[in-house]
């Protein structure tokens, strides 16, 4: 589960990670109140950073479609905050990550203190993250002296600037490892001490929240040698949310596709895509393979939908209802490998679901394979509905091709 920057910062702060202080606002008034309260000696002449709170990355370089403002703005004084808030709130932020899906509506902004103040020491941005190394089965710390930029780019162009440290699950992160990382980043003096503490606290936050990714980019060294998290991305293992009710409650459904939110209420595993052929499949691997097959047949998958092993009439009906709400869908392919569930049962369920919904105007291809596959196909063919049956995968692909040729004609 993804979290907003402001939520992630609140969480890591509880574990002792120093953060760039800030307050979240949903209205211009709240933004002004936040600006007035952030500095002990008042906002006069102070700098603020105003950041759009959306899940998509690349906010700093992104633009608000309606006003042309950037997704992250450094402004001066309360007037500056007011202007930035007006330009961002309610706008649509387009970034490199979300422009394909039409951008993200900005419902919340974070008003934060400016950490780039002048002082005796050199200011510098770093990169620091903790994530799972799947192949090793261990968590790994990835750090780089090149902060504020895309880490994948650094990994490609300057692999020597990346420090990695794996964590033995038996003993957890050790002090020598925090020193290794801090030395690797070139920290010294007070900044070195703060850096090691920062990392130890960050690891604690990662572990105790069941995070699958915790990224600080940039981690910033201020002109007085403090180390602070200027940005923070935190994503939690969905399978572990049952033991983090407080974090689960932070889910922001406004950031998700409305159809996906609805599907999740039905406990359906649905992901909206932008193609023209909807699909409903039992099993995640077969669902992905079915999407690929749609593409090879000349269509584009409109969604991923895994209805699970059972594929009951009730689930199938809900699946149809979700898919049919997508106006791009020109045809639907149902692909069920009936193993322990018999195909005739699934076929009856599909017919029942079809009749319950009524008025389905797109052609449906039902491919049933497994126990009683022929009987299932017979039930589909004799139902009198606008449904074609198939038994093998190759047959199903061929029928998708035929249907697409008809709809485009």
């Amino acid at each position, binding site marked *: 589960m993804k979290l907003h920057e402001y939520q992630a910062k609140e969480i890591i702060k509880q574990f002792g990670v120093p953060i760039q202080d800030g307050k979240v606002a949903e209205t211009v008034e709240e933004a002004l109140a936040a600006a007035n309260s952030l500095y002990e000696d008042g906002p006069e002449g102070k700098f603020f950073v105003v950041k759009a709170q959306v899940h998509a990355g690349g906010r700093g370089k992104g633009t608000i479609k309606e006003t042309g403002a950037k997704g992250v703005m450094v402004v001066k004084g309360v007037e500056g905050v007011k202007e930035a808030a007006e330009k961002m709130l309610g706008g649509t932020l387009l970034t490199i990550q979300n422009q394909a899906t039409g951008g993200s509506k900005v419902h919340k902004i974070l008003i934060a203190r400016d950490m780039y103040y002048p002082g005796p020491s050199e200011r510098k941005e770093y990169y620091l993250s903790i994530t*799972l190394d*799947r*192949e090793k089965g261990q968590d790994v710390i990835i750090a780089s002296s090149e902060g504020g930029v895309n880490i994948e780019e650094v990994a490609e162009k300057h692999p020597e600037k990346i420090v990695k440290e794996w964590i033995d699950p038996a003993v957890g992160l050790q002090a020598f490892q925090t020193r290794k990382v801090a030395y690797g980043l070139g920290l010294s003096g007070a900044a070195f001490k703060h850096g090691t503490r920062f990392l130890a606290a960050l690891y604690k936050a990662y572990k105790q929240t*069941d995070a699958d990714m915790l990224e600080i980019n940039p981690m910033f060294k201020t002109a007085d040698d403090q180390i602070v998290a200027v940005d923070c991305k935190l994503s939690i293992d969905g399978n572990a949310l049952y033991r983090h009710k407080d974090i689960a409650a932070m889910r922001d459904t406004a950031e998700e596709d409305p159809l996906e939110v609805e599907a999740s209420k039905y406990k359906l595993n649905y992901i909206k895509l932008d193609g023209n052929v909807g699909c409903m499949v039992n099993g995640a*691997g*077969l669902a992905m393979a079915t999407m690929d097959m749609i*593409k090879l047949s000349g269509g584009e998958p409109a969604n991923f939908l895994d209805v699970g092993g059972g594929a009951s009439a009730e689930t199938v009906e809900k699946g149809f209802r979700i898919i049919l709400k997508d106006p791009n869908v020109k045809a639907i392919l149902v692909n069920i*490998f009936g193993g322990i569930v018999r195909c005739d049962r699934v076929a009856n369920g599909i017919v029942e679901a079809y009749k319950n919904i009524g008025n389905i105007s797109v052609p449906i291809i039902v491919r049933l394979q497994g126990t009683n596959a022929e009987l299932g196909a017979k039930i589909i063919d004799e139902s009198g509905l606008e449904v074609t049956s198939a038994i093998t995968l190759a047959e199903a692909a061929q029928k998708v091709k035929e249907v697409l040729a008809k709809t485009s004609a």
Partner: protein
Amino acid sequence: MSILVNKHSKVIVQGFTGKEGSFHAQQMIEYGTQVVGGVTPNKGGQMHLERPVFNTVHEAVQETGADVSIIFVPPAFAADAIMEAADAGVRLIVTITEGIPVKDMIYAKMYIDDRGVRMVGPNCPGVITPGECKLGIMPGFIHSPGSIGILSRSGTLTYEAVDQVTKEGLGQSTCVGIGGDPIIGSTHLDIVKLFNEDPDTKGIVMIGEIGGSNEEIAAEWIKDNVKKPVVGFIAGQTAPPGRRMGHAGAIISGGKGTAKAKMDVMAACGIHVVETPAAIGATMAKALQQAAV
């Protein structure tokens, strides 16, 4: 011959008396698997499906001589069940449970690796040696004894491959669903090595999906070590980056783990890569003919 399990394997079921455990234990017994008992804490001493229930895996192993355990325990308690099985000294653990937190699996994996116990799964359909031992939730009847080893990260997609291989008249030596999670007991490479050593496995079907780099690691090893024909497929060519496609492990992150990258590496390593899962069976039949010439 076969890998991992055969007609001599003695199986206990952890989560025996639960709904899933009961249903699938019954199916396994009907298939002919030697299910010798089960474990459900605080239900020891009862009989279930005409087999004894034990409180602990230790007791079950001691009393029945079981060498294999299959786990149907709910996700919150599954890591504990895995470690208990490893500590009790079984040779093989098959974990069916889906939805185990990654943090729990990191510990469980370390624990079983330290004790040299092999695990298949979690989040998998299990292992089957057709005609001898069904250890999982797969439909038994689609399988037939034969010479093709099949391994895959997914359930129904494995059945698809099995069905096609059966209809080509080839049959399977053993089929292994290695699981769709980011951390799994046995990787593609682990199972490919076993199939390679098994004299009765004449060809290998390796099915992968987006996320991680296990398929690439196995492919590199295959290039240098495997003479048997290998047919490969990767699901998720049309999957968008950054989204988890049903399986916890099926995610393209930071541009890594795409289907294309995996298929390219596999093809470069001499694997017969198919673009559509519909071609798995026919491609294997052809590859075997070519290998025989």
